[in-house]
């Protein structure tokens, strides 16, 4: 059904008919975005096997499980993925986990680029980094510490807080800093790093710090700059 309905803008009328005819309970609202580069493009830091399983199996399962929650949760199918994050608190855990898994992985693919192709921090971002951390190296040190110290499965984040400061935080499982959850430091994510074992185990096994340090070569600063500019204009 997803294939018939894509691209949605062109085929929307046909798609609606097909869905009606199939008498599906709800619009299959959420879609797995393709990787923005070939699965081998991030080698050697992250190999093709890891990327393929991570995207085609793990991320795809979050999307499929999230869509499976639509019929049981009125309103869910009408929300954008981004809007859902800020209101997961009113939904059951399966929506929080799978909705978070979908959003987190979508931003993860986009914030990486083949080594050497990700550009550099914009002057505005660099200024904010210096103001909040002193230097990019200091930011990275704090970020690496948070990513290494996250016990179990989760994510490390660079966020822009509502007061304009940049900060490092980490979340458990598939939670993220956009979520309306108690005890969670909120902000707009500029960089999110997956530190679930599935993100690195085939290559790095127990050596999470090696994965983290190799991963910095993959940062898509052009995307980080874009997120920072968008967050600053709100």
């Amino acid at each position, binding site marked *: 059904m997803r294939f018939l309905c894509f691209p949605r803008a062109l085929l929307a009328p046909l798609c609606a008919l097909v869905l009606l005819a199939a008498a599906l309970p709800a619009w299959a609202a959420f879609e797995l975005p393709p990787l923005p580069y070939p699965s081998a493009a991030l080698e050697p830091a992250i190999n093709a096997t890891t990327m393929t399983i991570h995207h085609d199996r793990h991320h795809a399962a979050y999307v499929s499980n999230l869509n499976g929650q639509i019929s049981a949760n009125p309103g869910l199918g009408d929300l954008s993925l981004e809007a859902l994050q800020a209101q997961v608190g009113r939904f059951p855990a399966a929506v929080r*986990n799978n909705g978070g898994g979908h959003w987190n992985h979508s931003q993860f693919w986009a914030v990486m680029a083949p080594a050497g192709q990700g550009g550099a921090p914009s002057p505005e971002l660099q200024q904010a980094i210096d103001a909040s951390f002193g230097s990019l190296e200091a930011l990275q040190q704090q970020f690496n510490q948070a990513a290494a110290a996250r*016990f*179990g*499965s*989760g994510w490390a984040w660079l966020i822009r807080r509502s007061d304009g400061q940049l900060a490092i935080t980490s979340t458990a*499982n598939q939670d993220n800093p956009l979520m309306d959850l108690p005890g969670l430091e909120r902000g707009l994510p500029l960089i999110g790093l997956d530190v679930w*074992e599935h993100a690195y*185990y*085939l290559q790095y096994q*127990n050596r999470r710090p090696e994965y983290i340090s190799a991963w910095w070569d993959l940062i898509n600063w052009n995307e980080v700059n874009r997120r920072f500019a968008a967050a600053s204009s709100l």
Partner: protein
Amino acid sequence: MAHTLPALPYDLDALEPHISRQTLEFHHGKHHAAYVNNLNNLVAGTDLEAKSLEEVILAVAGEATKAGVFNNAAQVWNHTFYWQSLKPGGGGAPTGALAEKINADFGSFEAFTEQFKAAGATQFGSGWAWLVLDGGTLKITKTGNADLPLAHGQKALLTMDVWEHAYYLDYQNRRPDYISTFLDKLVNWEFVAANLAAA
């Protein structure tokens, strides 16, 4: 007392092809060893240093400021218990008093299997699935990260590690296949029966 890494109760390749030598090398030799090492470093020079592993776990359970000690101590305990929950040529159905108790408390062995599989599959993120004795009744539970029955007043009888590191090299994202194999080929029911008899 210094905590030590117990030897595996079987050879590194004894669980092949279900759990590979490579998985056990990392799981026992790196992950379990790191928990032991971290724990010893964390309790050195504190009043926890003289306590047994279980005493440490009970002393810091629920203390937010001692989460690091709890996580490492509980993971030392959990992994030692997990190695014993497995054996080459294991799996299948239990017999004797344990089988009768499972039938009495779950209705059937199949019902037990179904609940245990569901607990392992639905533990979101890292964690453990357990068969425990709780107030005289067998129950299936699941815990996140390092959490364990001891911290909840329950007696552990059987555990299955569902951290991704337990199965990722052999099964990748297919956790349900690992769980089925655990039950069909690996469970050490004699260990479970002995834990029940000692309860």
